[in-house]
């Protein structure tokens, strides 16, 4: 009989991998999503269409299909042999970028055109007005949506077990296969996801409260 104490550290180590997937995915998603949103609101027609197609594609295809498509199809075809972790982070990131672009776009739109135009009348260039006036507000407005995106990408990251990334679920499955005892290991895995979801969104909501602009109530 294997005791819980024997395998818990092994599963816990998966938290680091999961956080790596989530952190990497969110970061890439941010780097891709924010410029996409700016392009969608302020860009020329051609840029807008490109971003729309990108967002539409990655939001329409299931994550599992995307993972297989990129890991077995697109990356090898392009001559890259990526390890499962890198490939998973990239796919989670590019997909999250599609969702994040929509979060940021909504936030930018809700800042309103008036302030942007006011900045332009002061003589600010397009990019300066966006950088100094629109983005500081839009990013604040985005935080709740972003917290939601964190929770989603965290839970989605479990699908990366299909590529053998050593995250929480992969490790839990190995434990179950070794012990032939599914209940407690899967229970632990579930509990870990609850803790991660709760603490992450809590941190982001605290940041959101700290950054609130005095007197202002945002309507989304």
């Amino acid at each position, binding site marked *: 009989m294997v005791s819980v104490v024997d395998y818990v550290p092994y599963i816990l180590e998966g938290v680091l991998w999961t956080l790596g997937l989530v952190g990497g995915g969110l970061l890439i998603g941010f780097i891709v999503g924010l410029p996409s949103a700016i392009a969608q609101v302020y860009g020329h027609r051609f840029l807008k269409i490109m971003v729309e197609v990108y967002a539409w594609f990655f939001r329409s295809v299931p994550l599992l299909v995307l993972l297989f498509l990129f890991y077995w199809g697109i990356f090898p075809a392009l001559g890259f042999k990526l390890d499962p972790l890198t490939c998973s982070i990239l796919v989670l990131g590019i997909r999250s970028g599609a969702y994040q672009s929509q979060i940021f776009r909504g936030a930018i739109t809700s800042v309103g055109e008036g*302030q942007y135009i*006011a900045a332009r*009348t002061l*003589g*600010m*260039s397009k990019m300066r007005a966006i950088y100094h*006036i629109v983005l500081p507000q839009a990013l604040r407005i985005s935080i709740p949506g972003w917290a939601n995106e964190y929770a989603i990408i965290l839970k989605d990251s479990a699908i990366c077990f299909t590529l053998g990334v050593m995250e929480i679920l992969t490790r839990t499955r190995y434990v179950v296969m070794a012990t032939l005892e599914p209940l407690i290991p899967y229970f632990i895995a579930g509990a870990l996801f609850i803790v991660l979801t709760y603490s992450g969104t809590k941190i982001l909501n605290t940041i959101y409260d700290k950054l609130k602009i*005095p*007197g*202002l109530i945002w309507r989304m």
Partner: protein
Amino acid sequence: MEDVESMVEDEIVLKVEDLYKSYNNVIVLKGISFEVRRGETKIICGPSGSGKSTLLRCINLLTKPDKGMIWLEGEELTTRSININKVRQKIGFVFQEFNLFNHLTALRNVSIGLEVVKKMKREEAYKRAMEVLRKVGLEEHAHKYPAELSGGQKQRVAIARALAMNPSIILYDEPTSALDPQLIGEVLEVMKALAREKVTSIVVTHEMGFAQSVGDEMLFMYDGKIIERGPPEEVIHNPKTEIAKKFFERIQELYGREKR
């Protein structure tokens, strides 16, 4: 000395010639021409849809006119090679809806243009911003955010924001139309004070008391054209056209006869 002053006074700051603009096949401006001299306060009024706002937006190139020319201090703005961002630094704009930057205090609303556009050091910009806020009577509200200010205070910050850039001309687009009646006075007082200091301006407004007390000339627009022009008292009390007469009667019904 006096001669020099009168020469400066006579200098043409803004010249608009034969301006046309249309949106979706609707012609909004049909050949607008006028000049604004240094220190002058030009009043523009007319029914809604007559093209007043479009005219102001054309002057600082928020919208491109289809035809016609605009000069600011002798420089033609309607050429392709113009640096829009440079020109706009010289044209202050005050909006009906204030459009303050919500994430910045009153002080930073005024200073950010100086910092970002005029490349002033932050301390210097704050000093200048404080000076201008004092001028509009908002010194003690400098560290409040827009959402903590009343409508009248917001509009005064917006005026300060335009003024701080030391523009050649300030364009006011119905600056008191979005305000509660009891807040209009404080904004008009600031505008009057600036007019008396000879800050060159174009004011689109329905405040006839204001127009008569500081306006040097009034342009009455209707259907994309200037159909009356002259000293405000003349245009208001002795309009030549039936349209203007009806308009001013209606305004007086709505706003009452008392002077503001």
